[in-house]
């Protein structure tokens, strides 16, 4: 039976308070490491045409988009600072033996 999780990166491949953009099943995903924990969201901002992986993590769990400096909570995808108003899609993450996995699409 095929595994429902796909490896996308090494845990040691992201620095603390940093982002990493990965491709996963044709989509651009942004990984974050905050307090040792890994989070994942779509990489494209829901407000403007920009990649969140090029933004800065602020105040713990906020990712600030580089284009207009609006923010989202990376734990829930909720828009926090204007001009962001639409929620960001989050993805479940699994760590196993030093690797980061994202869920495969259900067959």
């Amino acid at each position: 039976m095929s595994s429902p999780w796909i490896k996308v990166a090494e845990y040691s491949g992201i620095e603390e308070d940093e982002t990493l953009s990965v491709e996963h099943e044709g989509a651009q995903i942004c990984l974050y490491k905050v307090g040792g924990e890994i989070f994942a969201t779509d990489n494209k901002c829901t407000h403007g045409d920009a990649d969140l992986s090029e933004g800065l993590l602020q105040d713990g769990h906020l990712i600030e988009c580089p284009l207009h400096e609006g923010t989202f909570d990376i734990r829930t995808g909720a828009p926090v600072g204007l001009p962001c108003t639409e929620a960001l899609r989050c993805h479940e993450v699994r760590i196993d033996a030093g690797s980061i996995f994202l869920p495969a699409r259900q067959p």
Partner: protein
Amino acid sequence: MTTAADAATEQLIRLAPKFKLTREKLMAARHLPGNVYSSPEIYELEKEKIFMTHWLSVARVEEIPNVGDYMTFDVMNEPIIISRPREGEISVCMNMCLHRGVAVASGCGHAKDFSCPYHAWTFSIDGKLIAAPGMKESECDLKNATLKKLSVQIWRGWVFVNFAENPVPFHEYMEPIEKNLWWFQSENCKLANKAVIDVKCNWKFLVENLIDIYHVGVIHRSTFGGFVKGEKLKFNLEKNGGWHTRYEARPHSKSGVQIFPTLPWATEEPSGIACKAGIYPNLNLSMRADSLRMWHIWPISPSETRVICYMLFPEDAFSIPDYDEEMKKYIAFVKQIIAEDAVMVESLQNASGSKFFVPGPMAPLEEAIHHMENHYVDLMTA
């Protein structure tokens, strides 16, 4: 060092003896000298003294019907954004980024915010600054910053704006003419179409041309012509350069037959009813039994003007059989009228720049033109 305004003022002073001839009573008056239609300095002073001080109609409310709709417009190179930020509210602000002045919005449409195309400063659709990326370390206080707001007044479905800091209250300005416009119920009509025509002449020639009924029988024979007899027409002249009149005419169509249904408020009137009014500086209101028009005259340069004719009809008109075909014919009819006039006004423009042109005497039928030319002199020499 003389500024352009100084040069214009000097030119106006030197024209004083010619203005005196315009100021004579109608039967003895002469038209304005050519210089006011061709001088670039006087044109700039007109912007300052007239267009930046008067209430100007820039849009119909149905052009931005839903919350989030916006459109852009330009008055003598002053770019503005007209938007509907909330239910029941229309906002107009200057379309210039607070950073370096780039236009933040373009065209028209629907938006949640405007992101300046230069450095991505972002504004709500009514001009509040909501993001200034890269500016965190700036010591300038950008809290509460907004694009400059202009005074707005909605009147009978039209969006009026005023660029002045402290404009004359709108109702005060309209008061002299307001009660005479029973026939202009544009709030009970919908915009059917806009005809936009560019003409190579000074704006004032077109404003005057639109009430120059003296030429109708000569130029517009094939469209809506027929001579207008002076005795049958009386101009009512109002303060602030306004005027209104009523006369009998053929229905406003190529065939002379009424195509669209009668306006609900004109059913008791004769079918040949024609009403007209002028609101200074650049509006010409026109009514026939079945339709309303408001002509807007916008200066582009001393010798170029954009004419926008808004065609309005009550609800009923939109559901007549063959509406699309009849509307196409109607628009072509309106454009043909301007095309017939364009040849004349472009010739006037040419003469206005010639030292050989001597303003001629006014005709009795030019009473409204006399009124507006005198109002112009009042405003420009104040």
